[in-house]
């Protein structure tokens, strides 16, 4: 069975919970080498003809994801790689639509550091877009891999307004093998970095929009087992194998007093994804809702 024909490999509940907590997933070397080589040529051709009628494969906004980059496009084959297709399906659904894409090229010895930013404009929606970052060749440390701030996706900021932070403790810069795909929540802070290497760094980014509620689109075979009730409470009895256990992870740059507000944001998103309005992490939402119900009669 060829890569293009293999069924998508959906995400697990733990992977989805990790995406909710940290705002990204990293799929290392999931695209085969032959696709990476062909995609490199295709991306260079797209970049060279950007904006012109000569551009190969020019999708339109709102075009179904299933229709963009048809065979024999290497970019299309990347998108239909089982692990990539499964992640996209799990997060935005099989009927997601194309928003836009771009080919990012960082030449050797490019010293430019891009300010931290969130793409598009400030977007507090609970439903979310995703952006996939595909690296068709190896990227060594310092060779211009994208930097990003794990756990920043719920921070409501507009585009480059977070550029005032030159460095954030715990930020990461991508380095890794060819065929790696990062998938970001639309709100994740990120930016381009200098390329201190001796070769250009190529990266392809595509934004996708969901067209239906993103409810239970992943492999939910283990969801009932992992989904916790409000009785899973860090200050009472708690589990190590629940969704809440994954969502409790923190980031080194969170302020002391904001850490729990991040838990509230994660719980709200997990309620949406799991279709379970009673879900909670450490009772913060449940406690407030219960009292509000009393006062509101």
């Amino acid at each position, binding site marked *: 069975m060829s890569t293009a024909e293999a069924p998508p490999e959906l995400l697990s509940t733990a992977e989805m919970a990790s995406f909710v907590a940290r705002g990204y997933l990293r799929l290392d070397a999931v695209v085969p080498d032959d696709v990476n080589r062909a995609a490199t040529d295709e991306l260079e051709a797209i970049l060279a003809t950007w904006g012109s009628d000569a551009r190969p494969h020019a999708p339109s906004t709102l075009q179904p994801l299933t229709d963009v980059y048809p065979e024999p496009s290497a970019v299309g084959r990347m998108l239909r790689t089982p692990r990539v297709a499964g992640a996209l399906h799990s997060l935005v659904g099989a009927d997601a639509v194309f928003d836009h894409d771009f080919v990012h090229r960082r030449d050797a010895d490019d010293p430019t550091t891009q300010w931290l930013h969130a793409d598009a404009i400030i977007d507090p929606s609970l439903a979310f877009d995703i952006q996939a970052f595909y690296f068709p060749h190896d990227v060594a440390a310092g060779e211009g891999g994208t930097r990003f701030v794990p756990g920043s996706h*719920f*921070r*409501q*900021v507009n585009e480059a*307004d*977070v550029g*005032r*932070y*030159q*460095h*954030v*403790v*715990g*930020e990461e810069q991508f380095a890794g093998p060819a065929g790696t795909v990062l998938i970001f929540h639309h709100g994740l802070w990120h930016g381009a970095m200098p390329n201190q290497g001796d070769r250009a760094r190529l990266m392809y980014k595509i934004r996708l929009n969901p067209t239906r509620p993103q409810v239970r689109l992943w492999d939910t075979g283990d969801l009932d087992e992992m989904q916790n009730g409000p009785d899973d409470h860090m200050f009472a009895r708690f589990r190590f194998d629940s969704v809440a256990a994954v969502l409790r992870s923190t980031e*080194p*740059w*969170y*302020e*002391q*007093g*904001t850490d729990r*507000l*991040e838990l*509230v*944001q994660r719980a709200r998103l997990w309620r949406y994804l799991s279709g379970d309005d009673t879900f909670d992490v450490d009772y913060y939402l449940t406690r407030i809702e219960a009292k509000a119900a009393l006062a509101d009669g």
Partner: protein
Amino acid sequence: MDESTADRRALRQQVLLLCLKTPELDAPVIAWSFHDGSGRREPLPARSHGRPPYDDGVAALEDGWRLVQMAPAVPPPSGDEHRVAFLKHEFVFERFVPPAT
């Protein structure tokens, strides 16, 4: 204009932004930025990758930086108590150094 005034006017400002984990100045640094008006355009003294130039705000004072601004304590707007956005505990420091020659 005496000589000391002339010397001070010849100095150039450097600005250090430290975001701390709590509103206390001795709390750990979680984010930082540096701007250099001296013309050197060099980073702060190197530390290992990912480590801030100082462990906390007091360490910056001890190294000669002067605190010029700290984030005020502002209650969240009603109905918006759970929103997360910019880093809350921001401290701005300055120091003056001779210009690059």
